[in-house]
């Protein structure tokens, strides 16, 4: 369990490091500003799917907070 924990934290650190070399200038954000390019585009779909999979499988969450429990699992 402890070993798995270390891998998870390492994964985040690796992802977060070296980030300062990536990116765009403020005036180059036209594409990224579009609704379809947001990380939580189709938030309703995500929430509905989260509810389906929470009640059919043993995993949940990861992207954000589930927004309320249900008695289905």
């Amino acid at each position, binding site marked *: 369990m402890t070993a798995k924990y270390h891998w998870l934290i390492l994964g985040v650190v690796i992802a977060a490091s070296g980030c*300062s070399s*990536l*990116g765009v200038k403020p005036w180059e954000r036209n594409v990224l500003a579009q609704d379809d390019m947001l990380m939580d585009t189709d938030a*309703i779909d995500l929430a509905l799917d989260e509810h389906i999979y929470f009640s059919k*499988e043993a995993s949940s969450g990861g992207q954000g907070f589930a*927004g309320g429990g249900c008695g289905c699992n």
Partner: protein
Amino acid sequence: MKKIAGLLSAATCSLLANPVQAEEPNWDIDSAVLYYNEDDDRVSAFEPVISGKRDLGDEESLTFKLVLDSLSGASATGAVPSTQVQTFIRPSGNGTYTVDPNDTPLDDTFKDTRVSFSMNWEKPIDRNNRRNLGFNISNEYDFTSASVNALWDHDTNQKNTTYTAGINVEYDYIDPVGGAPEELTSMTAQDKNDDDDRTIVDLLFGVTQVIDRTSLFQVNLSLSESSGYLTDPYKFVSIVDSVTGQPVDQLFENRPDSRSRQSLFGKYKKMFANKDILTASYRYMTDDWGIDSHTFDATYRFRFNSGYFIQPHLRWYTQTEADFYYYFRRDDQRIPGDASADYRLGDMDAITYGFKFGRTFDERHVWSVRLERYEQTGDSSPSEAFGQLDQQDLYPDVTATIVQASYSFQW
């Protein structure tokens, strides 16, 4: 309480103080209706959702969401099928139901309507920091849940990198029909207590990073601690005769009273030169129940100049079983402290495939229809099966159709 009252007053004032020149839309409305239907007369769900986000100016906003969830149909109890007719006592303790030979025992008294309401308030702290506070309450006839959450976003690197930290605290009150059964007691004893509860605390740490003009990614680490009543009060573990494999008793299941979960989630979005968008994500989850899972999800949105789009979707999921998951127990085996035959804790793979199509008229004005199939499979003939169990499907496939219609607009 005072803070909530203050927030509500501020929200009400903002809502009522509509400017005279009300040409500017102030609300972003997202609505959808989901229909979920499992094959073989299992679970069906009908779920309308409506969400409204009110722009309060200066990047401050208030979001309300209401979900209604009407469930019907039958759910697997965890009991094994038999070559003989079986009789089960209903959760209420009043009355019984019978299961035909070789059928998977399903409890068809499973009908439920859930209402969920949430509110979130987002406001910048300064140019590079934002806070989001929210709460949720939901209620079904045997279950009530209340949660509060807080999220903090911090931008750096000319807003190319955003760090997120969040916490969610949830309290669930469970009042099962007929009462919460005493763990691992016989169905026939109907040894039940009243109600029970549990608390779940979730922490989220994330980084969202812009790669270039047309792509970005996000990595999140989530930690979740649950404690309290985590058992399903309606599920059984069958005790079978050690020679014939015929069920001789049904015990109410029992799960540990704590669960520690960790997950690592990554998501990537890329817009191509032709304006199509690829979204791909992966989640690894592990917990102290012995369950490990992997989830891969990808969509590709074909976007057409007219605003129409078509978006195929593929999701692949796999999980390992919980340490205390058993298909059944033999009557010559010790009964462990924790045992569950709930298929949702077993070794399984699942695939979702389908597509969404719709049309974007302009900023935040979109309709779409989603059509998907969900197919879940496990080991129907595990090596521990014997006697009459050899002829039975001990992990039936769960297959379902998902249909969703959505409409978003500004008002």
